C-alpha cells in the first residue's frame, strides 16, 4: 500500500498541517509507504527554514524536515504557490535577483511543479488531502 499526501494549509493556522504530519508519521511507523507529500496553496509555508516558534511549542517545519531525513521522504513544494509566498531555493532566488542568502527552502523540501501532484495521485494507491 502506497499513499500520497496533499497539504493545503499553512503551519499554525488551524490544525491541518499538524494532522497531515501526525498522519504521515503514523503511516511511516506502521511501515506504509509514502510516495510523496505535496505542499500546495498556503501549505507551501510549511517549507520555510526561517520559522522560529517558541521553544516550548512544536516546530512544524522542523518536524517535516526531520521526518524527511529519517524516512527519505519526498517533500515537494508547488513552485507557483511558493513564488507567490516568498519560498525560494537557491536557483529561484538567483533567477529573480533576490540576492545572496535569500533562499529559504527548508532541508528535505524541494520546489517543483504541479505535475508532481498528478504523478503522486497516479503512483499512490490513495491520495489523502489535508486542508482548511
Amino acid at each position: 500500500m502506497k499513499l500520497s499526501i496533499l497539504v493545503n494549509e499553512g503551519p499554525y493556522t488551524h490544525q491541518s498541517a499538524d494532522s497531515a504530519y501526525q498522519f504521515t508519521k503514523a503511516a511511516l511507523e506502521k511501515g506504509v509507504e509514502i510516495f510523496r507529500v505535496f505542499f500546495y496553496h498556503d501549505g507551501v509555508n510549511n517549507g520555510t527554514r526561517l520559522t522560529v516558534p517558541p521553544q516550548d511549542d512544536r516546530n512544524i517545519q522542523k518536524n517535516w524536515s526531520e521526518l524527511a531525513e529519517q524516512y527519505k521522504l519526498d517533500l515537494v513544494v508547488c513552485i507557483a504557490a511558493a513564488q507567490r509566498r516568498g519560498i525560494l531555493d537557491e536557483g529561484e532566488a538567483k533567477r529573480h535577483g533576490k540576492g545572496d542568502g535569500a533562499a529559504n527552502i527548508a532541508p528535505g523540501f524541494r520546489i517543483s511543479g504541479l505535475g508532481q501532484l498528478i504523478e503522486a495521485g497516479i503512483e499512490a494507491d490513495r491520495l489523502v488531502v489535508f486542508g482548511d
Partner: protein
Amino acid sequence: MSTLHMVNKSPFERGAMQSCLEHALEGDGVLLFEDGVYGAVKGSAVTGLIENKAGSVKVYVLGPDLAARGIAGGRLIEGITVVDYPGFVDLVTAHKGTQSWL
C-alpha cells in the same frame, strides 16, 4: 468498503458534516477529526444527522482530537468508534478512496 469521508469542520460552523452524510453511500466510512469531532457529541442539535445514518454508514472519530477538546468518551453518540492515528491510517488503507470535505 468504499469511500472514507474525512470531515474536519465543526457541524456548528459549516455544513460539511451534513453534506457528507447526505452523500455517503451504504458501506462508506465517515471520520470526524479536528473540529469535526464536535459532531460526535450526543445530545446536540445535529446528533440526529448521524443517528439517521447509523445503519448504513460507519462513523469514526479521532481520539487525540477529542482529548485536545476535553470531550470524554462517555459523551459520544452510541455506535461511534474512537480511533487513534494508526487507526486513521488503517481506515485510509481499508477503504477504496478518501474524500476530504474541506
